[in-house]
């Protein structure tokens, strides 16, 4: 796609297309459920907040540090983040295997 779309506009347009395609699939297979905003609003707000800082900083990092370095740091922080937020939000355990494979994964 090159520089035809800007980072944020590409993400916004892609998101619109994904929601449209998935929406049609969900309609066909009757996968829509009640929103239950009372229960789910903290998670929805969390998702909005998290997505505010997903593309922009990555775009900036790629421009400043290059694709290779930026993506290496991003992949490593996704792995660490999944462990950290998994522990924080879902009370997952840090098993020895998980920590070892995380270290190996980041090294690789």
């Amino acid at each position, binding site marked *: *796609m090159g520089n*035809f779309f800007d980072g*944020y*506009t590409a993400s*916004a*347009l*892609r*998101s619109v*297309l*994904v*929601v449209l*395609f*998935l929406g049609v699939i969900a309609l066909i297979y009757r*996968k829509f*459920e009640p929103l*239950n905003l009372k*229960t*789910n609003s903290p998670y*929805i707000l*969390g*998702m*909005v907040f*998290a*997505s*505010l*800082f*997903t*593309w*922009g*900083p*990555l775009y900036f*990092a790629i*421009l*400043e*540090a290059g694709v290779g*370095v930026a993506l290496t*740091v*991003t*992949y490593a*922080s*996704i*792995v*660490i*983040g*999944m*462990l*950290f937020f*998994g522990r924080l*939000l*879902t009370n*997952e355990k*840090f098993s020895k*295997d*998980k920590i*070892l*494979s*995380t270290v*190996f*994964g980041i090294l*690789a």
Partner: protein
Amino acid sequence: MALGGALISGLSSAAGAVFSKQIHYSSTQSTIMLWTTSIVSNTFMALIFGKSYPTFNFQIEWLYLVLFSVASIIASWSLVRGLKIIDAGTAGILGLLEIVFGVLFGVIFFQERPTLIAIIGVVIIIAATGMPYFKTLGKAKVAK
């Protein structure tokens, strides 16, 4: 500063994925919600930074965007479905397989030749992603 940006992006991406695990919807609706929040935040950021939307004129880039969207549906639905079944930490480690497939697709589609260090990295990633399951596999063999 740039690396800080990459770090924030990765952590935010992980947080979003874990929130989608916690939300009380099916995988399909959780994925739709994940992308709906992405529309809201990216449109907001595009407005803040004064970014304009290109006009549609049958350029090839629009087709690439559609194909990218289809790939995104498969990838994100699979991630959300997986997160509802396994730990976020394990899913994060399995996510590193994206790099392995990146190298593989580079070889298949662009005739790239991976360097020795890239191959070593790929082997370590495959071993690392299997680690959380080695014990389970061992126990299953003993039980048999």
